[in-house]
């Protein structure tokens, strides 16, 4: 499988912007780019529940809004529950004939803190209850909105304001929580990872997830120049490197079946990814090797799951 560079696919994207320009995100914010693409993919028939976080703050300073679709912010940890309420209300109001019947996508969005940490319980509950909604985690690997504090999604070794590099400790000492695997463990119909550096792949996954009946989860790696201490114009490149090094593989779990979206015969060295980011500046070659070893192992496991899925398919044929 290779990357989808179909020129026609780009032209199918609407030119309309539902996440309007003029919001206040930082230069080079790949999270804003991801959200813009998600909004384009879903079009106007959507209701968004947004967790507290960067995307909420940059887009909704009262009395302004960047949203051209219905958008709702309630709190930090409850977005999946709010989306549950929206989805249930749409269902029952259509059933009772109080609003016209039609397809309206319920989208919940949160950052890695709002998803993998404080919002995990509400998300798990909503996935288990089987609401027909799409949850998108835009993962910039720390609490960037409050000033770059570590989350459970911060990668091993990364320096943040609460996992600093000190005399006896070298940044984050724990490994990144595997949030897509947790979502997949709920046996929901669709789980995927995506990255705005691969826009067509991202848009296709969002559209697919929106069409699926039942809960869907998409985990989007979102490069954050402010938090990662990287150069803003390198955000797209960093996203590509995250995928090419195996740090953030792009894949789908479609009704339990794993499929790699892009595979590489040879992964690039992790060093190429980390050397462009100030948050990893302190890493020694030994530490980078330790990271690479783990990433290769996890990538291998993922590939094994994907090839099992492919074998199952061919057996069925």
């Amino acid at each position: 499988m290779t990357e989808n560079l179909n020129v026609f696919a780009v032209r199918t994207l609407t030119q309309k912007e539902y996440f309007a320009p003029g919001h206040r995100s930082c230069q080079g914010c790949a999270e804003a780019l991801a959200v813009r693409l998600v909004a384009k993919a879903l079009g106007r028939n959507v209701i968004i529940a947004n967790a507290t976080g960067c995307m909420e703050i940059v887009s909704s300073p009262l009395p302004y809004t960047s949203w051209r679709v219905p958008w709702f912010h309630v709190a930090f940890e409850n977005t999946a529950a709010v989306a549950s309420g929206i989805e249930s209300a749409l269902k029952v109001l259509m059933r009772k004939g109080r609003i016209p019947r039609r397809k309206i996508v319920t989208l919940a969005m949160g950052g890695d803190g709002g998803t993998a940490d404080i919002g995990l319980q509400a998300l798990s509950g909503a996935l288990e209850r089987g609401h027909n909604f799409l949850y998108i985690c835009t993962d910039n690997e720390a609490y960037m909105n409050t000033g770059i504090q570590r989350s459970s999604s911060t990668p091993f070794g990364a320096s943040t304001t609460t996992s600093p590099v000190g005399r006896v400790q070298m940044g984050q000492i724990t490994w990144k929580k595997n949030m897509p695997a947790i979502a997949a463990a709920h046996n929901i119909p669709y789980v995927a990872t995506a990255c705005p550096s691969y826009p067509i792949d991202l848009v296709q996954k969002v559209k697919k997830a929106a069409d699926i009946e039942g809960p869907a989860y998409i985990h989007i790696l979102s490069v954050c120049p402010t938090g990662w201490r990287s150069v803003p114009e390198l955000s797209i490149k960093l996203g590509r490197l995250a995928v090419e090094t195996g740090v953030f593989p792009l894949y789908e779990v479609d009704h339990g079946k794993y499929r790699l979206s892009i595979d590489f015969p040879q992964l690039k060295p992790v060093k190429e990814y980390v050397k462009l980011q100030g948050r990893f500046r302190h890493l020694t070659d030994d530490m980078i090797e330790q990271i690479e070893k783990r990433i290769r192992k996890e990538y291998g496991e993922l590939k094994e799951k994907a090839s099992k899925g492919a074998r199952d398919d061919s057996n069925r044929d």
Partner: protein
Amino acid sequence: MGKRVGMEVSIAAAEAVKQANVDVISAYPITPQTHIVEHLSEIVANGELDAEFFCVESEHSALSVCVGAAATGARAFTCTSSQGLALMSEITYIASGLRLPMLMIIANRTLSSPLSIWNDHSDTMSIRDCGWIQFFVENGQEVYDHVFISYRLAEDKNVLFPVIINMDGFILSHVIEPIELIPQEKIDQFLPPYQPLHRLHPDHPVTMGAFALPSIFAETKKAQEEALRSSMPKIVETWKAFGDMTGRYYHPVETYKTEDADTLLVTMGSCGETASVAVDKLREEGRSVGLVKLRLWRPFPFDELKKATLHAKQLVVIDRAMSVGACGPVASEVKAALYGEVQRPSVYNFVAGISGRDVTPSDFIKMVDKAEIEIEEGNKEGYEIYGVRE
């Protein structure tokens, strides 16, 4: 007259939620609220009510589901108690700030610690300032009636606030009482389906829950404050309309034998009925005692309370919650209401019946005796926790 039947008050509450044709129900189990949710789940399972019913994974999510549903234009219901209310407290403030109509019944129970499942008002006092309209009811009929009153009020375009009905856990929630059920066609007339001014829908995109910088925050909160205060005439009007339909008229402050009384008991919640028995006994003995019951807790009925109490020499205010390090929350509100008056009664404050300890008519009599003696001796603004073993 509707049909009068004996039923558990929690069941009556659930039946009222059914009759109110609620769209979304979301709750999490906690004693003593459970019977309401259990019965509602039966009602939905039997197809007697067309609603989306969710047992969610926490009270925080229960209220969050209601917030999402109400913003989408659905009539939403939840109920909780104690720790559950404490867990959802964050969202209570947001629901009122967003001006979303919904109903929550709280089967009032003690807040830990020590852990206790029994009744007092410490749970609801923890969210006293959350900006909801807050009722305290005295018996099962009032619980049943206030479900309809609350929804009609909450959804009024000139109100748009979430509403809390406080009913005492176990003391009310688990007792069987005669309830006069209102025929469905009357309910449908009194409470038509909710038609929101704004809802989350792609045809009319709105942004809800924007954040406010200091330059605009105070203005939004003032708007909320003024809206809640000015809901008072609507509350009275809704009670009047309900009374015209059923013959049961409610008021922000209820009085019992107060006209010529020197001493007034002031209560809130189910202990009002017990206190009225005590007042009868004291009156038989020729004592000049009456009873004032607070039904409306927020917005606080300052004028009505003054009108009901200013002629008295002393008030004996019973609190079923503590504000540790200060006096009881009802007493501090009563004192605030009276402070501007030159001629005002003394306010003696008892905390009584916390964590479900029984407060009997004779306890009320003892409290009146004690307060009258203390005030006579010059302790005019006393505060004590009643009946504690030393």
